[in-house]
Structures are given as C-alpha cells and as structure tokens.
C-alpha cells in the first residue's frame, strides 16, 4: 500500500481528489442528507478498495552495478530459521567450490506484525543474531569466507538494504518447503526474481526431515 502523503506530489494529488469527492458528497447532501451519507460511504469503500489494490506497472528488473575483484563472485544468502539447514550448507559449499566467492548472509529479524507495531523487535533480532553467529561459525569451520548481518523484518526490504551495500552477483534464498513457508506464501522468491536482474537460487530446507542414521 502506498501512503497518499508519501511525497508532495502525491499529497497534492490527494488534495485534488478530496475536493472532487467532497463536492459530490455536499451536492448529494443538499438533495437529501441520507443520499450524501450514502455517497460518502460509497466513495470511502471505493477509495479503500483502490488503495488496497493499487499497483503501478512493474518496473523493469534492477541491474546491479558490479563491484569487487573481477575473479570474485559475490553471493547474498537470505535465510532465517533455515539458515543452518543441511541443504543450504550444501548449496553454499557447491558455490564456494566453483571459484573464489564472497558470501554475505542476511537473517531478517522475523517478528510478528502485532509485536512489530506494538512493541520492540529486540528479541527477534537477538534470535536472528544467534542463528547467524552459529551459521558463520559453521561456514568458517569448513573454510568459507562469509560476513553476516541482521536484516529488516520484511525479507524483501532486508535484501534491498543489503543489495545497496553489498552489490551481489547472485542471491540464494533459503525457505521451508512449500506449505510451511511463510516467505513462499508471500511470493518472496518470485518478487526477488522480478525485482533484480540477478540469478536467484531457491534452496528448500526441510528441518523436519529426520536425518538418516549413518
């Protein structure tokens, strides 16, 4: 949803729309007060419906300007609860084996919407930090160079923040399997593919899968 006061131009447009809407309401009220109330209700419902569904044309995928050494790949890994999953570790290992690679691991600080708006996100950030620390230690133990950061509660915003500074060549997104993944439900992977002109690899991590005894 976009705020009607997100910019001066948007606020000015909202003012013009308000003038038109209230001209209709006042005109209808002069005919009959209840007709004015009805017009008010209809306009409010219509505005709310448009507000919820407003979508401009999708911008073309953003091309990320490359930085860093020519022979070095820059890979952004986005994961949270699945950050230490075997499938993700395996995928990172395969990428690392292919050549010199710099990894940036981002853990969005998952928080409930209610808690985000009514309280703080410190516990969510602390939990994400614990998972990130464990993952970085594990990667380090197998000789993989990686940095890490806690991201915004929204994975798309977390990626956008990191893309600005890290400028990756590839994005690896780790999620739970379909049906259990909130990110897949929200279309995070598809949104990343639409938004960036980068290779986006989706890794499914099933944490409920019982490891086979060796």
């Amino acid at each position, binding site marked *: 949803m976009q*705020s009607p*006061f*997100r*910019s*001066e*131009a948007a*606020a*000015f447009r*909202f*003012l013009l729309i*308000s*003038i038109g809407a*209230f001209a209709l*309401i*006042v005109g209808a*009220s*002069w005919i009959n*007060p209840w007709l*004015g109330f009805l017009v008010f209700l209809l306009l409010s419902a219509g505005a709310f419906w448009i507000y919820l569904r407003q979508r401009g044309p999708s911008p073309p995928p953003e091309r990320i300007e490359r930085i860093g050494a020519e022979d070095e790949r820059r890979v952004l890994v986005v994961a949270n609860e699945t950050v230490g999953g075997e499938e993700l570790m395996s995928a990172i290992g395969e990428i*690392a084996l292919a050549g*010199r690679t710099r990894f940036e691991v981002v853990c969005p600080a998952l928080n409930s919407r209610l808690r985000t708006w009514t309280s703080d996100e410190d516990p969510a*950030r602390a939990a994400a*930090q614990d998972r*990130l*620390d464990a993952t*970085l*230690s594990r*990667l*380090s*133990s197998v*000789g*993989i*160079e*990686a*940095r*890490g*950061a*806690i991201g*915004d509660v929204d994975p798309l*915003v977390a990626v*956008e*923040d990191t893309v*600005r500074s890290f400028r990756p060549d590839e994005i690896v997104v780790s999620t739970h399997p379909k049906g259990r993944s909130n990110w897949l439900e929200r279309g995070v992977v598809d949104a990343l593919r639409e938004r960036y002109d980068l290779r986006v690899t989706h890794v499914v991590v099933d944490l409920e899968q019982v490891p086979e005894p060796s």
Partner: protein
Amino acid sequence: MNAHAEALHDDHHGHPPEAHQSSRVDARVLGMFLFIASEAMLFGSFFTAYFFVRVVNPDAPDTWPPEPFEFPVFVAGVNTAILVTSSFTMHWALQSIKRGNRPAFLAGMVLTFLMGLAFLLTQVIEYLNIGFNTGDGAFASVFFGLTGLHGAHVAVGLTLLGMVIIRGSRGHFSPEHHHGVELPGIYWHFVDVMWIVVYSVVYLI
C-alpha cells in the same frame, strides 16, 4: 579458500548499536508521515465530538447552526478558494526548485505564505463578527474547536513556509536538495485537505 568469518556486530562492545534503518523509506519522510497520521487522529477526535453534538445528541438542534445563528458560508467559501489556491502555488514552488528555477520557487513560496496569512486573518475577522461565542452552546464549542484547531495548523504551516522562504532567499535548496521544501509542502497539502473536510462538514452540509 580463505577461512575468515565475521559478524557485523563484533565491535558493538562499549558503543551503542547502529540505528536500524531501511533504505526503502527515507527517515524524514517516514517521520512526516507518522506525524500526519497522528494529526489525522487528532482531527478525528474533534470530528467525533462534532458529530456527537450534531447527530447523536438527543438534544441536537433541528437546524444547523441552531437559530438564530448563521455561518458566513460565502466568506468561508472565498477563504477556501484562497487556501486551495495556495496549494497550487506550493506545488508550483516545489516543481520550480526541482527544475532549478529559483525566482519562480521564491515567488511560489511567498504567494503561498501570503495566501495562508490571508486565510488566517480572514478567519480571525470571521470569529470577531460571527455573532456567537464558545459559551453559546455545544454547537459553538465544536465550531470554534474544529475551525480553531485547523487555524492553529495553518499557523504552524505558515511558520514552516516562512522558514523555507528565509532559507530559500539565502540560497538554500537546489534541484538535488529540496527535502526542506518537500516536507512543509506535504504538511501544507494535509492542512488543506483537512480544511476541505471541515468546510464541507461544518459550513455546507
């Protein structure tokens, strides 16, 4: 492969953590948006009182305003036109500084300020000649409450516009840096939107 792992929070000992900030929403725009949201709720509370007095109240008057009082609808209508026009000049001023046209920017800002001032002075004159006061019933209280609240916002807006004019005349702002104009512009349009609602509900309906 070089074994090297680090987390960005390592050097936080003894220092406050870095502010968490998203790149998607500018902090200043977000601040103005939250401020306007709180202002909308403030006006909402006043409108609630207004509709209670006029509609819900069992002793609500049959006519609005109750006889023998009258609202100066025409004068307030002219005042409305002045305030709405000031939004156009505000928009023109911002578009001008975005294009690097400083004289047009300053002209637009001064015109906006003068029209805002004219609105406020007209409202003061209206108060002096309206023929009733806050002690003349609940209808008078909500009338002065709503229009006075809006007038106070116009006064704040004029202060912001005045600061923009002073800064602009000293060479501040450019096509690349005009946030200091954009934010008062958002506020000014919000004040105008609120007046459209106040004028429609209190004077016309």
